[in-house]
């Protein structure tokens, strides 16, 4: 029996879909059987980020309403054996699926997959309610911005009200240099407000944009710092203890040299 994890944030554009794609790909790369569920009906993106858009025939609405069998709507990834996608519908809206149907779908998917990861739409309305309906666990994504943290806080409250206890936090797009200069909220600032367990910190990285446009999640990129951050997150989801990366040392050779000669 697998577990259903919902990736949510409240605010849009903080990286829910990117996070979902990377966690799913990372888990599948470690030979787990994973299905990613795009709950953003009407504004689907996950298929595009995974480069699977042109394979969609049936979608989550078809599966929920019995127009097709669930198995028919699930798309296999083109690279990783264990990775699957249940795409959202693009021509419908959030009301096309009810929370009860989502619960049923998730229960069905759990039987077959080790991890069911639900990509939640932005907002706190029906789409959010659908996405969390069948979830066992929640991951809240935020960026180091006051507005994103505010929305994350609201979401954590709503998750608690829905009895989804103990959500985990991912801080996305952190710029160590700006934090150091005091121009950006630090990890501690955010943890102080949100007061939930930290699952990982992903640094700002151009490679994320490049890989997203190519339809290849950055987690598979051995050389990238953000890819490493996602790989660590994946291991933590599996229950391993992995220390946080030292993002401060990012900045390459010059900084390393300065540190060597004691200039900090």
């Amino acid at each position, binding site marked *: 029996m697998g577990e259903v994890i919902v990736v949510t944030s409240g605010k849009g554009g903080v990286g829910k879909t990117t996070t979902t794609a990377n966690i799913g790909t990372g888990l599948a790369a470690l030979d787990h059987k994973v299905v990613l569920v795009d709950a953003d009906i009407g504004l689907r993106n996950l298929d595009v980020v995974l480069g699977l*858009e*042109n394979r*969609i025939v049936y979608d989550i609405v078809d599966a929920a309403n019995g127009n097709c069998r669930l198995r028919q709507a699930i798309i296999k990834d*083109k690279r990783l054996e264990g990775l699957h996608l249940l795409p959202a519908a693009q021509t419908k809206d959030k009301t096309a699926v009810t929370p009860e149907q989502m619960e049923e779908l998730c229960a069905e998917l759990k039987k077959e997959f080790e991890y069911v990861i639900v990509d939640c739409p932005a907002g706190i309305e029906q789409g959010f309610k659908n996405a969390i309906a069948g979830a066992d666990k929640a991951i809240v994504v935020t960026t180091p911005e006051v507005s994103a943290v505010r929305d994350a806080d609201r979401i954590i409250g709503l998750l608690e009200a829905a009895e989804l206890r103990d959500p985990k936090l991912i801080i996305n797009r952190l710029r160590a240099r700006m934090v150091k200069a005091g121009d950006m909220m630090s990890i501690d600032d955010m943890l102080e407000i949100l007061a939930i367990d930290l699952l990982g910190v992903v640094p700002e990285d151009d490679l994320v944009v490049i890989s997203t446009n190519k339809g290849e999640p950055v987690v598979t990129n051995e050389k990238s710092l953000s890819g490493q951050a996602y790989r660590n997150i994946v291991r933590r989801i599996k229950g391993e203890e992995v220390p946080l990366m030292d993002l401060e040392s990012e900045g390459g050779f010059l900084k390393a040299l300065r540190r060597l000669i004691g200039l900090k």
Partner: protein
Amino acid sequence: MCSGSKNNAGKHEQQAKADFELDTLFDENTILVQRTLRSGQSITYDGNIVVLGDVNPGAEIIATGDVIVMGSLRGVVHAGAAGNVRSVVVAFKLLPTQLRIANHITRAPDGEAADSDVPEIARIKNGVVTIEAFNSEWQGK
């Protein structure tokens, strides 16, 4: 927006006899879509669809007959949706996310973006969906 023009068939027949066998060409089930279809927009019609505009990725056109796009076709298209294998898809730029004719489903090979300067036509030939340059020598079905 589905303004299928239903002419008086009897009147049309008379007129057709006067010229030549126009009734073999006559098809009352066509709609004209005079705008670009954007992501999430969808048109389903029991007949042919002509689009004066583009069909963007994420948009969808489903017709029981033919589909003609006077622009770029980048979304999902389904011609002959009720099973007519003689249906065709024509577009100035034929670059669909997915192309379906009757019960055939095709997509472009991964990582390949074949660009053509001429209008193209997709149809089923010997059981496979084939895309060719469209020219006026094409004599229909």
